[in-house]
């Protein structure tokens, strides 16, 4: 499955992602933010597909959009939002924050401009048809230990979440 009309889809997906990203941080209602974030995540999954990374795209959809965001929506529905919506949405240091973040952005761009030549110009040959198999090989051979640690991390997270969210255990 070759990516087609690369230029169009790249700009389209990037626009979707960035615009939804803006929506995430500007919406008053957290549910709207969450929905915008889901759109951003799906757009990003599309970008992954264009980067010949279908497995990561699949994981992005199934875990991020289908799992984590459902958790977010659940929590948003559980905590009262009516009052929070009427309050001031941005904190007092918002100007400082935006200036700092934009400075960071400028820094990024500068670094990219300077360091453009450092990237290899040739694209690595990644056979798309064996992406999943390749990831499996790496994950269960080279990164076995990290994988186990990650599972432990998830276990700890589960226990932690239960401990904190439960009224009485």
């Amino acid at each position, binding site marked *: 499955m070759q990516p087609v009309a690369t230029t169009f889809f790249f700009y389209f997906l990037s626009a979707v992602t960035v615009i939804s990203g803006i929506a995430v941080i500007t919406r008053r209602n957290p549910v709207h933010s969450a929905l915008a974030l889901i759109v951003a995540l799906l757009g990003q999954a599309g970008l992954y597909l264009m980067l010949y990374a279908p497995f990561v795209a699949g994981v992005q959809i199934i875990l991020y959009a289908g799992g984590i965001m459902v958790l977010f929506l659940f929590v948003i*529905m*559980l*905590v*009262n939002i*009516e009052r929070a919506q009427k309050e001031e949405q941005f904190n007092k240091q918002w100007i400082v924050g935006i200036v700092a973040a934009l400075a960071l952005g400028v820094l990024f761009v500068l670094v990219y401009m300077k360091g453009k030549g450092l990237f290899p110009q040739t694209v690595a040959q990644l056979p798309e048809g064996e992406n999943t198999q390749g990831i499996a090989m790496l994950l269960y051979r080279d990164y076995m230990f990290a994988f186990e640690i990650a599972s432990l991390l998830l276990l700890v997270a589960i226990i932690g979440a239960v401990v904190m969210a439960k*009224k009485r255990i």
Partner: protein
Amino acid sequence: MTERSSHLELEQADKTYLDSNELIINMGPQHPATHGVLRVILKLDGEKVLGTECVIGYLHRGVEKIAENRTYTMFNPYVDRMDYVAAVSNGLGYCEAVEKLLNVEAPSRAKYIRVILTELNRLASHMLWLGTHALDIGAITPLFYTFRDREEILKIFEKYCGARLTTHAFRIGGCQYETYDGFEEDVTKFLKFVTPKIDEYEQLLTTNRIWVERTRGVGVISAADCKALGVTGPVLRASGVKWDLRKAQPYAAYSDFDFEIPTGQSGDTYDRYLVRMQEMRQSLRIIEQAVGKIPDGPIMAKVPKVMKPPVGEVYHSIEAPKGELGYFIVSDGSTQPYRVRVRPPSFVNLQALDQMVRGQLVADVIAVIGTLDIVLGEVDR
């Protein structure tokens, strides 16, 4: 009993679902599972029921008051409108109560006809209960099966007295109508027809895993609690008390027949289901015996045209499909009763709802309302 969860509390029903432990939900009066216009205010902790309050009276028609302005005969059809799915039983109780007041006894042929019709009515009532109860728990098919078979009973009623639901089948002192030609054959045919059908219902439900899981251990009530709350009928018997007015204080011709009182042990919804299924089989037995030895003779005792019972009072109760149905009638010697008080089984049994559902889940409330087998016409009168 429950502390009053007043309307005020309903107003300030929490703004946050997480933080406050209690959520108050209004179930009914327009709710598909409350069997009419019962309104139940549920106090919930998540899905767990902390307490209930029944709000009744949406179907109140003042039946007891109407009685005071009607003659004894004129009031007879009104009682059919209380428990409209078991109208025959209601009529039987009223007629026998007035007969007791008048010191009249119905002839034995009339008594046999009464038994047959009342037991058929019990079957019809239990069938309706089974269908709706199963529907509440999510099994849709039994409803259509039971309605198909209940139809046969209603056809017999229709042939006998012209009405299907509110039959007004009996009169004070006996029966108005002689049985139609082929009544016995019809009833025998029906018995043959319905016996395998009851097996069919049991096949659908009794060993169905989901049904058992949904009903076993749900809405448990102990025998002592039943007695304390005045609960009667299958609900009481499922808790292990062998109490059936047909045996305890035989009326009509019940002393002539051989039948058993099915009882349960645990007093949960599953036992109540089993008890009612057994009762249906016992009813078939009674009908079979009654049809076999129905005597000849008059169907109406000598009753004065204008009834003026002597001054006094009477309490007569029968075993209606839902429990003890009692009539307390005070006569002042005139043609109209001074006071009629009905002890409806549904009303009394409904009291047990709160006790049965506390600590259970919302879905169980539905199952318990179904298993109590209430008819709102009778609760509100």
